[in-house]
Structures are given as structure tokens and as C-alpha cells.
């Protein structure tokens, strides 16, 4: 065998490295279709007027467009304002929202999610909207009433305007192409058990490894546990005492249902294929037939998958027909506007524009999630937009059945992780639920201490 001298070693390693790199990247041509993270967009300035207004919105295309168009329409109507629309990534928006409010430099109009605000006193976060956008009764007549009850509001006042929601766990999203190939009509799946059977049929094993997951509940695991506890007549949170209790026969049965999907006799999802964090990417690769990540995913899925949605089927043993859709996106106004009548009036008018039928109908050309406005779906124009019909069908089926615990724990990820650990077999179901209860009760009691409950 020839000795490997330095020159030969270098030539060999360089050639091997180049070959490996080319080999690895060359065969990944299809990856160009995968979603590519892009930097947060630059703010848009609209108008040249004397009153400066800032809007913060999550950097999700349909939302940004809607905020921009509402500002443009308001400026075009001859109002003396200069509006800055600032798109901000979801995590960044969450991280900066409360510190900015505390520092008094938050935007005038903000988009956020209800579960961000539950661990503090919402009356100290945002402008009280009582009377500014009509009475509570008027709002309840134009909105789905359940969307006004997601957070416990001091003295029944209104501090946020329900906007739209992806409703994770309340909606089941399916890969239409796969369902059709298997001859399964998703609309015919009446119960959760039917959905599981369909998931088993759609699961594809390839040499001992799962190559297609028929049904993945991974991103919605904790929400499904809550939903199922309610559906069989149990409860997991006491609004009066603030006590969490997922550890119950109903809770254990709920987690057991999820465990069956991961490690039962005929699993429908594998952690080797997807996790809660990567579920959406794997779905977009056409390797998940059904998931519970929310209706918004229908509009951002590659067309060839022909994604569709149905309200998540209830358990066969259901006694309460309820669904738990995690959170909703809401529009809020800065408390600082209370001292500036002129600016407040401009902001209220822009917010009204955002929630007008015209603006929301336009949103459904890009957004497939649920809109909180009941009146919107009575407008015949909704049938002509791209996602209007599916949004209407799902909203009318889901919103009236939605229920919220109105708890005070802002970050429930650790509880979800405990469920995830049970699904992976790291810990027992009982231990997972006990750990989740321990965390939730600890955070709940500290939040209640802060709020003064």
C-alpha cells in the first residue's frame, strides 16, 4: 500500500469534500420549493399627514396586506395621518409587546394573540374600547360571541377586537390528494375514531420506517387533551380557585389516545418523521396526510397537495360538543391614546376599517383561517374569494362550539412538552400529567398574585 504523503492527503481530502458537497446539494433540487425564512420586511410609510400612527402586525403576508390596505384606504379618504405599518416576526412581536407597553413606546394599533395577555391585568395593557366601537351587545351581534370571551375581562369591558384565528386543534387539515388516492372522503369522518381509522389507512411504512404519517396530532397535543377532557364531561381548570387538574381519568384517557397514535399497534405518526416543531415542514413535503395545526395552513400549503379542512371530529363518547381553539389574533389599541382624542379617533377609524366587511373579505383571498366576524359570512361576496367558502364553512361549524378555560398561564409550552415526553415513552402518562399540573398551578398562582385575584 502506497504511503499517504501530505500532497496526496490534501488532494484526496479536498476532492472528497467537494464531491460530498456537490453530492449533497445536487440531489436536493426539490428543496427549492420548501419555505425559506426571509428577513422581516421593512416598515411601510403611508400618507404624509400631521398625525403619526404606528401599526405592528405579525409578518404573515395576508395580515400585513390587510393592515397596509386599511391604512391606505384611510389615507386615501383624505385623513391627515402618516401611518407606519411595521411587520414583525411572531416571536419578536411576542417578546417586545409587553416590555414596550411597560416602557410606553408600543405601537398605536397592534396585532397580538389572546394567550399572550392572560398572565397579567389586561386593563393595564390596552385602551378600554367600551363604546368606541359600539356597545358590547352590538359587538356580540356582529361577532361570534365566543370570540369575545377568550380572556377574563375586568368588569366585562372590551380591551381587544377579535380579528381572526388559525384554530389549532379545532380544525383537521387533510392532504386532499392522499385522501382521494385512498378513496376516503374526509367529510364522511364523523368521529375521532373514524379519523384515526382513516389515518391508519393513509400511513405508509417503507422498510420498517414510516414514510407517510396518516394522522399527526403532535402540534396540538395539549389542546387535544383539554378538548377531550371537556368532551367527555370533565374539566381541567377551575376559574374560581385557579386550580389546574389535568391528572384525572379523563386526562389519562386523552393522553392514552395520543400515545396510541405514536406507539400503538398501528401508529399513524412517528417521531423519526416529524415532531411538533417540524410537523408543518414535513406536511409541506407531502409526508403527512392529516394534521391538527390549524385552518390557516390550508392557504400556505403547496397547491398540489390540495389541502382542505374539516372541524375536528368529536369523540364517539362525547357528551359535550365543544372545541378548544387555543387562541385568536386580536387587534388592540395603545392606552396612551386615552390622552389624545384626535389620534384616538384616527386609530379607532383605522381599526374599524381593518374589521370592515370589505377588508375581511379581501383577507380571505389569501387567508384560509377563521374570521371572527359573524356578519362577514352573511355577505354573498365571501363565496367568490379563494378561501372564503372554506373559511365560512369552518367558522360557522366551529365558533359556536368553542370554549375557553379563561386561565392565567401565558406560556403553556412546558405542559405540552410533558405530554410530548409521555408520547415518546420517556415518562408515564400519570407523571406527565402530574408534571404539567405542577407547572400550570405554579404559574397560575403567581399570575393570580400579580393580577390580585
Amino acid at each position, binding site marked *: 500500500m502506497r504511503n499517504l504523503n*501530505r500532497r496526496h492527503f*490534501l488532494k484526496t481530502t479536498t476532492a472528497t469534500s467537494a464531491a*460530498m458537497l456537490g*453530492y*449533497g*446539494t445536487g*440531489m*436536493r433540487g*426539490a*428543496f427549492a420549493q420548501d419555505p425559506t*425564512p426571509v428577513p422581516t420586511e421593512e416598515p411601510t410609510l403611508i400618507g404624509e399627514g400631521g398625525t403619526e400612527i404606528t401599526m405592528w402586525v405579525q409578518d404573515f403576508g395576508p395580515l400585513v396586506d390587510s393592515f397596509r390596505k386599511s391604512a391606505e384606504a384611510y389615507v386615501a379618504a383624505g385623513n391627515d395621518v402618516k401611518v407606519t405599518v411595521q411587520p414583525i416576526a411572531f416571536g419578536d412581536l*411576542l*417578546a417586545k409587546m*409587553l*416590555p414596550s*407597553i*411597560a416602557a410606553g413606546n408600543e405601537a398605536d394599533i397592534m396585532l397580538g394573540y389572546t394567550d399572550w395577555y392572560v*398572565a*397579567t*391585568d389586561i386593563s*393595564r*395593557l390596552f385602551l378600554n374600547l367600551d363604546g368606541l366601537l359600539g356597545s358590547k351587545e352590538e359587538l356580540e351581534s356582529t361577532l361570534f360571541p365566543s370570540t369575545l370571551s377568550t380572556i377574563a375581562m375586568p368588569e366585562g369591558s372590551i380591551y381587544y377586537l377579535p380579528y381572526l384565528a388559525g384554530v389549532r386543534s379545532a380544525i383537521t387539515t387533510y392532504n386532499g390528494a392522499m385522501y382521494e388516492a385512498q378513496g376516503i372522503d374526509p367529510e364522511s369522518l364523523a368521529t375521532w375514531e373514524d379519523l384515526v381509522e382513516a389515518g391508519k389507512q393513509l400511513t405508509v411504512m417503507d422498510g420498517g*420506517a414510516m414514510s407517510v404519517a396518516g394522522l399527526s396530532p403532535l402540534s396540538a397535543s395539549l389542546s387535544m387533551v383539554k378538548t377531550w377532557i371537556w368532551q367527555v364531561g370533565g374539566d381541567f381548570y377551575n376559574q374560581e380557585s385557579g386550580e389546574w387538574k389535568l391528572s384525572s381519568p379523563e386526562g389519562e384517557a386523552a393522553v392514552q389516545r395520543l400515545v396510541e397514535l405514536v406507539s400503538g399497534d398501528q401508529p399513524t405518526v412517528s*417521531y*423519526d*418523521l*416529524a*415532531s*411538533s*416543531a*417540524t410537523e408543518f*415542514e*414535513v406536511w409541506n*413535503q407531502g*409526508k403527512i396526510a392529516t394534521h391538527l395545526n390549524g385552518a390557516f395552513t390550508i392557504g400556505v400549503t403547496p397547491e398540489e397537495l390540495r389541502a382542505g379542512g374539516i372541524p375536528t371530529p368529536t369523540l364517539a363518547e362525547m357528551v359535550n360538543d365543544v372545541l378548544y381553539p387555543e387562541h385568536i389574533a386580536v387587534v388592540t389599541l395603545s392606552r396612551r391614546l386615552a390622552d389624545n382624542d384626535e389620534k384616538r379617533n384616527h386609530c379607532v377609524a383605522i381599526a374599524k376599517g381593518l374589521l370592515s366587511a370589505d377588508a375581511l373579505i379581501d383577507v380571505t383571498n389569501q387567508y384560509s383561517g377563521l374570521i371572527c366576524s359573524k356578519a362577514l359570512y352573511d355577505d354573498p361576496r365571501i363565496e367568490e374569494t379563494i378561501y372564503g367558502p372554506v373559511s365560512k364553512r369552518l367558522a360557522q361549524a366551529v365558533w359556536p362550539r368553542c370554549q375557553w378555560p379563561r386561565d392565567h*398561564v*401565558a*406560556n403553556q*409550552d*412546558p405542559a405540552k*412538552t410533558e405530554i*410530548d*415526553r409521555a408520547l*415518546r415513552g*420517556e415518562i408515564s402518562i400519570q407523571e406527565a400529567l402530574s*408534571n404539567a399540573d405542577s*407547572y400550570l398551578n405554579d*404559574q397560575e398562582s*403567581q*399570575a393570580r*398574585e*400579580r*393580577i*390580585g385575584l
Partner: protein
Amino acid sequence: MSAISIRKVQSARSRSHAARNVSTMGVVVALFLIAYYALVFIVPFYRAIWLSFQNWDFIVDPIYVGMRNYDHVIHDDYFWQAAKVTLVFSVAEISIALICAFGVALGIHQLPHVLQRFYLGLFYIPVVVPGIVSILLWRWLYLPGDGVINGVLSRFGLPVQPFLNSTSQALWCIIAMVVWANLGGAAIIFFAGINEISIDLLEAAKLDGAGLWRQTINIIIPLLRPIFFYQVVVSVIGTVQMFEQFYLLSGPGFSTRTLAVYTYELGFKTLNLGYGATVSIFIFLFLLAATVIQVQRFMTKQS
């Protein structure tokens, strides 16, 4: 004049001389630096200590809770779990990174001058790549199913791996990424250190029959001890405070939740800033202890 009187006069002259040499500009600059240091470090640090005795969420008035947060940390399983992940990451990353960086520096040192520049530049590229780009690149490489690394593995008939989907692999995936990203910087420091070693010393060792291995063990490593010490201290602080890599390449469950990530979650997601501040105080104490131990060990060996 007595000896004592002479010393008193000399001492007075010295003080007077020192006073005359004090530069006004120097005092201004020093005061500015002290003010800056106080503003960006001392004030926030004492604020964090104050906060660790409160229950606060940015919005409501802080509520004094005494030692409750400290007592809570001691009994918090999530805290100790995050501490364990941090410890494993730090020990593994620092060990692997130091060995690799030293090996690369030693290897490059053996090359002709032209190739030395080329390879140093090559290894330094990841250091100048923005962190977020590196992280997203590796996230792409680690994708389950159709990821690049799994593509290569399957082409060679090897089983595909879940990587970031796996509780047992995710942390090691991040370690590999961090080692790759920081290798060039550490290698250059080692390379500079090796270049500082007297060629006469190495030539003498060669004449005595010492090969590269013996030279490395008996000459190069002992003489590079200050550099190893510096790298370890800086790396301990850097790895314990590391955040973006864990936030953006997070693995399942608590497998990649370090103390830095836990602190962030407590403060900005859970809105429990008081407890988050308490955890950050513990991180500071851990780092202080680790640094003091390292310094003491180094001083002992030096003496």
C-alpha cells in the same frame, strides 16, 4: 537629615509629581468609562438582584416575595434539567472544539506558507458568516426525511437519522454546528501560539529524535497552556450564555433547553420576570465559580 525625614520628603515629592502628571482628559475618559460601565453593567446587575425578590410581569406593580424565588430554584426540576443540558453542552462543545481547533492549527502549521493562508481562510469562513445564516443552514442540513445529511446517508446505504426530532441527537446536532461555526476563530489563536514557539526548540527536539507526536505532547501543548486557559474560560462563558442556536435549532422536549433559554422563556413568554431574574443570578454564580476555579488551577500550575 534623618533617613525617615528623607523618605518623607521623597514621598511628598512623588505625590506632587503624580498630581502634576494627572491628565484632565484622562480623568474625563476614565469617568466616562466608569459611567458607561455602571450604566450597562452595574445598574442592570443590581436591578436584576432586586428583581429576583419580586413577582413582576412588566405591567403590574412588582410584588415583594422575599426569598421565595431562590427557594423555588432549589426545588425546580426544570431549572436543574436545564442546568444539566447546559453542563453537558459546555463540557462536550469545549472539549471537542479545543481538540479540533488545536488539531487544525497544528495541521495547518505543517503546511507550506501559501497553503497555510488558504486553509486558515477556509476554516475562518464560518466565523464571518452571520450567526442566523449558519443556524438556518444547519437546520436545512438536519431536516428529517429530505435533509442534505440524510440524503448523503441514504445514498451510502446508511439509515436516515431524525437529528433535531430526536431527544438523544438534538443536543449533539447543535454541538456539531457550534464547533463548526467557531472552529476557525479558535484555530487561528492556536496557530498564532504555535508560531510563537521557538523554532530552535522544535529543531533541537527533532535532532533528539522527537517526532511530531512527542513535540506536541512535550513542547507545544505545555507552551500553549495560557492559550488553552484563555480558550476554556472564554468558551465556558460563551457556551453558558449561548441562546440563538438553542432557540432556533431547538430539539424536542427539554432536550436542548439550556439555562439561557429557560431564563428567556420565564421572562418573555411566561411573564415571570422575577423568577427569570433569579435564574439569571444563579447562572452568574455558576460562571463566577467556574472562572475562579479555572484561574486557581492555572495559577497553581504556573507557579
